[in-house]
Structure formats: C-alpha cells, structure tokens
C-alpha cells in the first residue's frame, strides 16, 4: 500500500461509464449515459431531484438496491466495476450527511477507513494524526463526532474516505447542508484533496455554484434521466459540451 504521505500523488486512474442505463420496474430512470473522468478531473452531473443522480452514484458504488435493473458498464483504471462488491471497488463516496459513525470517536472513524493491511499500530495512529492535522483538527481524535461543528464533521468525513485509499471519488451533494460561508471553504478543501491525489471525481448536485467551483465538465440530466446537450435554462455562462469527452 501507499506510504504515510497523505498528499501522495497519483492514486487515481480513469473512471469510465459506457452506455450506463438504470431502470426501475421497467421504467427508464437514467441514461443511457457515457462519460469519462480522467485522473484529477472533476465532472459534474446536474439535474432536478428525482432524475436518478444519486442512483447513478449508488450504481458506481455497488450499493444500488436490488429493485433497480442496470445496463452498460463502468470501469475504474481499466478494472470492470460491475462484478465487484462495494468493498472491493475502491470507490469513495461523500454524502450530503457526514454519516460519521456515532458510536466511534473521531479517530476511530478515521481508523475505520484506513485499510487493515497497514497493521502497525503506531503507523496507523500517525496516519490518523496527519489526517487530523490536514483538516486543522489536531487533538480532536478522542472527541465524540456529535460534539463537532458541521464543517468539522464534513472534513472528517472526507478524510475518512480518503484514508480508505479510493481510486475515484463520488460526491453526492456533499455541500448542500453546510451554510454558505462554510460551503465555499469545504468545496475548495474537497477539490484540492481530490486533485492532489489525482482522483477522478464525479459530483452530482443541483447547485450551479458547485458545478462552477468544480471547474470541470458539466453534464445536464433532464427530469426523465436523459442526458441533455445543453442546460435547460441556458444562461450562456455555464454552456459547455454535454458529454465530458473532447476537451
């Protein structure tokens, strides 16, 4: 595994989606969708609620519920994802809620993310301390997550995901619940870390500012889950090619 250098480069590969289609009880929910996110790039998927954005991320994680039918393929760094269980995919995800485990301390939450094959206790503790320092949370290891502020919890959640050494990062509106001042800082924090690790990052959101801050390609989904070539209310500023290919 990688060493203790948190800012170590080049963990990610390329995230590719080929004709991905999600159906729910015979009705098309999303797709067919093809896109490629290169290492260190951020692609934003935008669309109204209910268009299947979150289901797309669940599909990539492997946590999509059994009632969905899927078609198409997803590959990460050349590996086919579809046949892998979630815990083997090395796809990290951040949700709107931090979902820190309430029974574990901050440090234990981080340790939960750290791969078990790093066995040495001291090395594990050092990685966790380094992660905390990176988030300006030195000395917070023994704290109850419930006693942290929303922004602090969000940073711990990101670090927990990064410590699990993912090869791609999925963001399921993780900025939505933070207040505006915090949102901007946390956004930059997330994108900086994703770029530093060269992770292909897929962001779903309905907030155009998220998309703008991400700075990458933007894919618009219609309410029926089809990919649009242009945003529904074009204001010129956000007009970009629909599919994240030729750049």
């Amino acid at each position, binding site marked *: 595994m990688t060493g203790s250098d948190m800012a170590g480069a080049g963990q990610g590969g390329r995230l590719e989606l080929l004709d991905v289609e999600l159906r729910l009880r015979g009705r098309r929910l999303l797709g067919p969708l093809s896109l490629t996110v290169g290492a260190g790039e951020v692609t934003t998927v935008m669309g109204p609620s209910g268009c299947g954005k979150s289901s797309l991320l669940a599909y990539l994680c492997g946590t999509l519920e059994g009632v969905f039918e899927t078609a198409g393929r997803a590959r990460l760094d050349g590996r086919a994802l579809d046949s892998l*269980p979630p815990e083997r995919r090395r796809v*990290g995800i951040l949700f709107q809620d931090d979902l820190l*485990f*309430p029974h574990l301390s901050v440090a234990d939450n981080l340790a*939960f993310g750290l791969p078990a094959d790093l066995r040495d206790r001291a090395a594990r503790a050092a990685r966790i301390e380094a992660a905390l320092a990176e988030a300006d949370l030195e000395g917070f290891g023994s704290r109850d997550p*419930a006693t942290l502020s929303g922004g602090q919890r969000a940073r711990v959640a990101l670090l927990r995901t990064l410590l*699990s050494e993912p090869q791609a990062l999925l963001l399921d509106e993780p900025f939505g619940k933070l207040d505006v001042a915090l949102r901007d800082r946390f956004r930059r924090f997330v994108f900086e870390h994703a770029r530093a690790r060269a992770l292909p990052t897929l962001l779903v959101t309905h907030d155009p500012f998220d998309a703008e801050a991400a700075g990458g390609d933007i894919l618009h989904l219609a309410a029926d889950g089809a990919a649009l070539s242009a945003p529904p209310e074009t204001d010129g500023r956000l007009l970009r090619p629909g599919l994240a290919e030729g750049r």
Partner: protein
Amino acid sequence: MAQALQPLDDAPGGSAGRSIELLQGAPALTLLLFLGPVAAGLLGTWLPAVGHFPALGLSGPSLAPWQALIADPALPGALKLTLTSGLLGTLGAILLVIAFVAAFHGSLWLARLRRLMLPLLAVPHAAAAIGFAFLLAPSGWLIRLISPWASGWTRPPDVALIQDPAGLALAAALVVKETPFLLLVTLAALEQSNAGERLAVARSLGYRPVAAWLKTVLPAIYGQIRLPLYAVLAFSLSVVDMALVLAPGTPPTLAVLVLQWFNDPDLSMRLVAAAGASLQLGIVVLAILLWRLLEILVGLLGRRWIAGGRRGDLLEPATRALAGTVMAASMLLAAGALVGMALWSLAGRWRFPDALPSLWTQANWLREADGLLASGGVTLLLGLASTVIALVLVLACLENECRRGLQPLNRSLWLLYAPLLVPQVAFLFGVQVLAVKLRIDGGWIALIWTHLLFVLPYVFLAMAYPYRALDKRYERAALCLGASPNRVFFRVKLPMLMRPIMIAAAIGFAVSVAQYLPTLFAGSGRFVTLTTEAVSLSAGADRRIVACYAFAQALLPLLCFALALAVPAWLYRDRRSLRGAT
C-alpha cells in the same frame, strides 16, 4: 442484492462465503425451529383427543375422549369462568389503554407512564398474580391498610375477594398485567403514524382532544394493535399460572382443568385432557372471530359517530377523569403488589390489622437460600440460553433480509404470532410427546427449545423496527470505505443498535422467566425454576416463603432491564447521539 451473494474470497478466515449461505438459511431455520414444534404439538394433542394414543395401546378414531369431556361436571363452570375472566380482562385492558392514550396524547403524563411500562412488563405473570393476591386477599395489605380504623374489621372479613366464583380477581389482574404491553404496542404504532398532524387538523376543526384522537388516530393505528391484542386475548383465555393463584379451584378455568387432567395419575385421563386442550384452542379461535365481529360492529357504529360530527365536549372530561383514575389505580395496584411481596418476604411477625410487620427479619430469605439459589440458577441459565439463541436467529434473519433487499411481508407477522395466538395448553402436550420421540424430554435441550418458542417472537418484534429503521446510508458509507458486509454488521450495525438489542434481550429474558406451563411440560417436572416454585408454593405454603420466591422471580427480569438500560448508557456515555432516551 447481487453483491451480497458474491463470494468474498479473502475475508477474515475465508469463511465469508459460508457465513452468507448460513445467513440465507436463517429464516428457514428459524421458522422450522419455532413453527415445527407448534405444528407437531398441535397434531400430537389432536391425535389423543380422538382416541389415538399408541403409548397406551389405543388407536382411534374414537369420540370417547370428547364424550368424557362433555360429561365432566366441572366443564360448564370452567367454560363460564374462562370466558368471563379472559374477555373481561382483555376488554378492560384495551379500553383502558385506548381511553388513556386518547385523553393524554402528547402529555407529560403519558411520557412518564411510558417509562414505568418496561419494568412493569418485566414482572412475570406469576409474580404479579401472587403480589395481587397478597394485596387483595381478605387478609391482604389493602384490607390491613383500612382496618380497623375505617372498616371496623379486627379479623379478616369472610368474603372471597380473590378466587371469587365469577373470576373477577383474575380479570382485574389481567387488566393490570396486560395494560403495559398493550400501551407500549399502541405507543409504538403511534410513532409510526402521523398522529400529530391528524390531531392538529381535527383540533382545528373544533374537535376536543379525546374525540379527535378516537375519530382520526385510532382508525389509523388499530390495524397495528390488532395482532398483539389477539395475542393478549388468547393468553387471557388460557393462562394457567395466574388462574392457579387468583381463580377459584372448583371449578377452575378450562386451562387449569386440562392441566389437572394431564397430571392425573390415571393415564387414560390424558385423552380427556387432550380433548380439553383442543377445546381450549377452539375457544380461543372462536373468541378471536367474535372479537373480529365486534371490531366490524364498532367500526360501523364508529363511522356513524364520526359522520355525526359531534366534537366530544361531554366525552372529554368524562374520559380524562375515568381513564386517569383507573390507570392510576392500576399502576398503584401493580406497585403495591411488588412492594407488598417485598414486605412479606421480610416480615417476621405481621398480625392481621397491622399496616406493617411488627417484626422484620431476613430469616425467610436465609432459610430459603438454597432453594432460591438453585431454582434461580436454573431460571437464569434457561433465560440466558433461550435469549441468546433467539437474538442470534433474529439478527441473522434481519441481516439476511437487509442484504438481499427483501421487503418484510405483513403475512409473515402472522407466522411470528402463531405461538402467541395458539394457547400453550393446546400444543405443549404434543410437544412433550415429540420430545419423548426425539429422546430429549426432560432435558435442557427440550426445555430451552420450548422457551425459545415464546422468547423468539417477542425478541423479533422488539428488534425488527429499530433494525429496519437504521439509516441504510451508514451501511453504504461503511461498504464504500472498504469494509466487508460482515465487518459492517459487527462494527457498525450492532454497536449502533446496542440499545434496542439490549432491550430486546431483556424482553426475551423476562418472557423466559415468566414461562410456567412450558417449563412444567418440557422439563417433565424435573426442572424447578423460580416460577414453578412460586406457583406451586402459592397453593398453601407460608406467605412469607411464597413472597421470597415471587419477589425473586420479579427481581431477576427487573435487574436484567436495569442492566439493559445501564450498559449502553455507560458504554456510550461520551457519545451524545447514542445516549438519547428509549
């Protein structure tokens, strides 16, 4: 979910694939373990009831057992007693619960009462009945408290306050004992309904709170109370231990009569007993059908009442006063029964009209120490074993359901309730026959297995809602961090569900401690628990000795509940979001 079926080659010990297969077998194993004996038990009771009993060299079919049953002079009285006490007890308990919740929805009183319910639920039926008898008997604590200054009695009055011919004492005790269960079930149903909004709408239309609750909330939640209510009805009509203590002996209730026949030294009486046990089942089925008819009738009348548009101005004060008073009296009786038992167990000398013992002593406890420790040990082992097995099976079933993305079916709830709806006396004899066939009769396996039949449904009912309500995204987050499903189960789900798990375990333990008839039948009389000892002593032993056993019987599950609340509270003392109230 497809990924739950994937073999996980390099999980710890390489056993993940096998454990998933095991998990998939969990529902089938559970159903077999607890429905098999019920079905076999019913069959094993019905066959002798129609004269087929190879052990005695009899092969049916024959109507002789039924003819003997119908000809028995005790039967008509027993039937009347059974129906009065069972129906009155159930009706009283559910009316009290509905009236009280309607009158005090959202009030502090209801919240306070709720905290009292778990400990009251934990008190075993036998202990409650014995405490009730100590309280209400002509020489009981209540009469002592009002004598002689108010009543003028210097000797116990010569009236049948308990074991009264009509079975009213048993009915009253059933009301007190079943109220906590029905109240908790009702409150749980309320939490899963949008009662607050319904009430707000009705109130804004000018309905007084009680009328608003009865007209808009009750119809919405009754469906969820129905099965537990039927279980209470079935239980009340066939209870043995409470009837032995509180109902008259000549004639006793049908269930007690059947037990006497099963224990008759004349083995041919077993056939009559089997017929009586089958009749007991028939009576419960009939009573449930009758109750269903009553529901339909009340539903029709209720719709007319709702359409009438009355706002309930008169109903309001009457319900509040009546429900409040009866609930308070019921809780006082329950508390008095517990305290009274403690007093009796510590009494050296307690002459009749004295309100308290004149001499206190621990001699009763010391004299009975050996017996208490021995029967307490059996009770504890039995309770722990059946609870742990039930918990493992229930968690495996729920985790399997979760991993395979199965939707819980309403119909499966009926299966779960089967051992609670079928009267114990109607199938335990057949279970005993089965145990003899399997050569496990009178041993620990048969005993634990029989307890499991009754522990399992309660543990499942207590665990299912919290398990299914756990935010699924925690599981997904943990999986995406690279944790295997097994690791997620043990490191994320179980710790987060510690509190409901502990409470479910405490409920299961209390259910096991309370079992009288199953211990008697499956143990072939070879195992003495606090429950069997307390009930058999209550037939005539020194009240102070009975008090020791009954109090110990009540104390054991109470301690278990205290532990179930204290352990997660202590473990999670520094975890704010897991410290919340139950």
